């Protein structure tokens, strides 16, 4: 098949140009295979990273049509068929070194910032043996353990775009991998560290990281788990935590989000007074309901019952969140039980052993 694409080339002096390419590639070719054909046969100076070509090393993160992908996971046939000419560029939120190669050091600096190693202590194994932990307990960090550090989530993170110091989805997913590990003895100090400026509460919840992660890590879910666990552990000084807590209180008491109280509860009285002029402006155009008497939703009992149910089932913290998900949902690739019969008409013959009768 003839594959057309355009690549944003950047030379070492920072000069950029969008260059069109056209190659004859086999039907099974991935974006990575196409880049290889270009580099070998057309322009040896094209720079990109690659290694395993099987979605596990995390080298070939890049952007296609503005969204991060692993080049080795991206099959081209469908794109060629659609007639689209994709634009390939380097990942976002990281400095470009050359062409599709970015400087990963800022990425690794964030990784290092979360003390990404087990701090033993909580649960000491018998000498010369392993810790005893149930599979169910390990599943809490099942998705976070899949991270291959490719950078696709960081590339698309909107919070990092406006606040480059934000720890970001990758580092936070790694943090969750330890916070949720029953062998780790530093959970609360980790949560403390993550409850500061540029920590978990700086995430804008745009879900682009979940959307773009090629491995189903779901970094945004990891951040949510860290938030839930922080509050469960009483680590709630951060404005973000206060904000989240007020949402819960407000929903429980009135069934609504009482926005007029949100600012004082989150940012404190002093800051609220400072915001007064802004609030009055909003009031004038009818954007703020009068705070008194509090407006209570008609079916508030439903909301209260939900709240009580979560507490009764002890579904606060990260384990509560995990229980709400189908196990390894992302990995299921949309699998539905009983979708089709693996041995039905047209399927591959049933296995049999010669001399042991007909196929069972």
């Amino acid at each position, binding site marked *: 098949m003839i594959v057309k694409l355009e690549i944003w080339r950047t030379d070492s002096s920072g000069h950029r140009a969008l260059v069109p390419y056209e190659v004859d590639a086999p039907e099974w070719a991935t974006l990575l295979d196409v880049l290889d054909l270009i580099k070998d046969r057309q322009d040896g*100076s094209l*720079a990109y990273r690659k290694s395993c070509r099987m979605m596990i090393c995390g080298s070939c993160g890049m952007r296609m049509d503005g969204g991060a992908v692993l080049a080795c996971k991206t099959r081209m046939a469908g794109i060629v068929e659609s007639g689209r000419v994709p634009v390939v560029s380097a990942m976002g939120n990281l400095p470009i070194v050359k062409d599709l190669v970015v400087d990963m050091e800022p990425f690794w600096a964030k990784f290092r910032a979360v003390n990404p190693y*087990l701090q033993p202590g909580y649960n000491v194994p018998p000498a010369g043996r392993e810790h005893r932990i149930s599979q169910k307990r390990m599943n809490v960090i099942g998705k976070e*353990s899949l991270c291959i550090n490719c950078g696709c989530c960081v590339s698309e993170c909107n919070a990092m775009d406006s606040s480059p110091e934000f720890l970001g989805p990758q580092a936070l997913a790694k943090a969750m991998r330890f916070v949720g590990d029953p062998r780790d003895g530093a959970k609360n100090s980790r949560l403390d560290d993550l409850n500061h400026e540029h920590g978990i509460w700086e995430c804008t919840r745009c879900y682009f990281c979940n959307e773009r992660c090629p491995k189903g890590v779901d970094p945004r879910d990891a951040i949510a788990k860290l938030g839930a666990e922080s509050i469960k552990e009483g680590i709630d000084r951060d404005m973000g935590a206060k904000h989240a807590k007020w949402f819960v209180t407000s929903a429980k008491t009135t069934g609504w989000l009482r926005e007029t109280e949100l600012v004082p509860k989150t940012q404190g009285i002093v800051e609220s007074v400072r915001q007064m002029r802004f609030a009055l402006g909003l009031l004038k155009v009818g954007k703020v309901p009068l705070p008194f008497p509090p407006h209570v939703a008609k079916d508030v009992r439903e909301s209260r019952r939900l709240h009580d149910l979560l507490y009764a089932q002890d579904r606060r913290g990260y384990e509560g969140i995990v229980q709400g998900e189908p196990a390894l949902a992302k990995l299921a690739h949309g699998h539905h039980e009983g979708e089709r019969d693996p041995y039905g008409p047209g399927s591959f013959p049933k296995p049999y052993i010669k001399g042991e009768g007909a196929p069972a």
Partner: protein
Amino acid sequence: METAHDVLVIGAGCAGMRAAIEAFDAGVDVALLSKIHPTRSHSGAAEGGINAALGNASEDNAELHSFDTVKGSDYLADQDAVEILCTEAPGDVFQLENWGAVFSRTEDGRIAQRPFGAAGAPRTAYAADITGHVLIQVLYEQVVKRGIRVYDEFFAWKLVEDAGRCVGVIAWDLLRGGLEAIPAKTTILATGGAGRLYVGTTNAYACTGDGMAMALRSGVALKDMEMMQFHPTTLAPTGVLITEGCRGEGAFLLNSDGERFLKRYAPNAMELASRDVISRAEQTEIDEGRGTEGNVMLDLRHLGAERILERLHGTRELSMVFAGIDPIYEPIPVRPGAHYHMGGVDTDVWGRTSLEGLYAAGEVACISVHGANRLGGNALMETITFGRRSGQDAADRAFRFSAAAVPESAVRDAEGELKTILDRREGERPWAIREELASTMHENFGVFRREEQMENQGKIVAGLRERYEHVLVEDKGEVFNNDLTQALELGFLLELADCMVVSGLARKESRGAHARPYDYPERDDESFLRHTLVTWEDGRPSLDWKPVTVTKWQPAARTY
């Protein structure tokens, strides 16, 4: 020139990182150097697991593990090395777990173990089907914890020898450009295998045998180079790995009829026979017309969705992306593909080579614990146990060695050689040479080998090496010039291919991965219970032999 290190580890996969951690903990100054970031290393692509007689799934011990390994090796393994591996393996696995490795668990919370090929007990500890990934992560975490210096994206090109000692390496800095000399009292090669010699391979693009070739050029011998393992379950067309863990979980191999053909080749072990046996069986089915488009079928359907999603989710993902197959409903088409080099740099049981101060550990090395055929799950174990041992010994020696320095002449020579390559304005781009090498090696030095094909391959490699003399690097820039490093890698591969052919022709018998059914169908212990040894002399491989160490297990007939 960089400041001198006590221990420099080249390659940062499982063996390299484990060695660096051990050396660091011994109290010396250690650095890692790798052409790709440590977590990108190909150890991370290992799927099925790591073998140690933990006894978590059934009764097991180091002696049983040793016997399985020796038998699996077709008796070419050195039995002293095998016993060390199997005895020290459990402690090393528990250490990984204590560091935080996310292993799968048994019902009672211990490390889970699954059956694997040619193993007498369920001995393969695993983390679903991403065991290598989990180990790479935990080792990198420990490297970060210790603050070990990493020369990240440095391409090691030449070992430097001074007064009979290895004193460091000359490497190309990929990100910034330029050659750097990095002196070290002791150097550990942990650069992995050379699967890129073949067109269908499970190996990453990075697996170009750099360490083997560098050692060879420094006068160190390569051992058993003819022993390239073909993994029975790889995906067409490029050879993406489908784990042996599938068969460990109970998957069937079928021919086009749906027949479990292994009944005719390995009636007892069936799908859990050793890899060489199964690869030959598959190739025979395919050659005799009972395959489907050059493949046989790996059938997981009877395992059910739940088990596949829990323990083989990576396999399912690979099958869906690269073959368009959902193994819950359809069998996966698979074929043998180049997977693992049992051969490599000749070392003793501490990873020492014949060159003072130079070590090798992991796939680059040949200790030899795998002999003529490696058991699935033993490679990860070897990287950890022998990575640790080489790190320990290298640190120990570094204490006793005087400071190392790279002679200026060595740097000047390297710069001159590099300039010659980069100044070349006309010549042949590397890709055609690389592709011809890989396709002819597959054709002529694959699962089955014929005398005349191997001889022909020798001529082909000679021709390719001649063409390589005029190889053209198009990118003349400094920054991220992997056009240059890919050309240098091809130079490594060509020399290794030469060594393999010479070794293969010399071994006039069938043993493990070296199968010659047309002229020497039997194993010949009388003449060939010994290792091939190749050194580089006047630009050509020169062949020698080395005895095999036998401790407890006399060679016996090998059936599964």
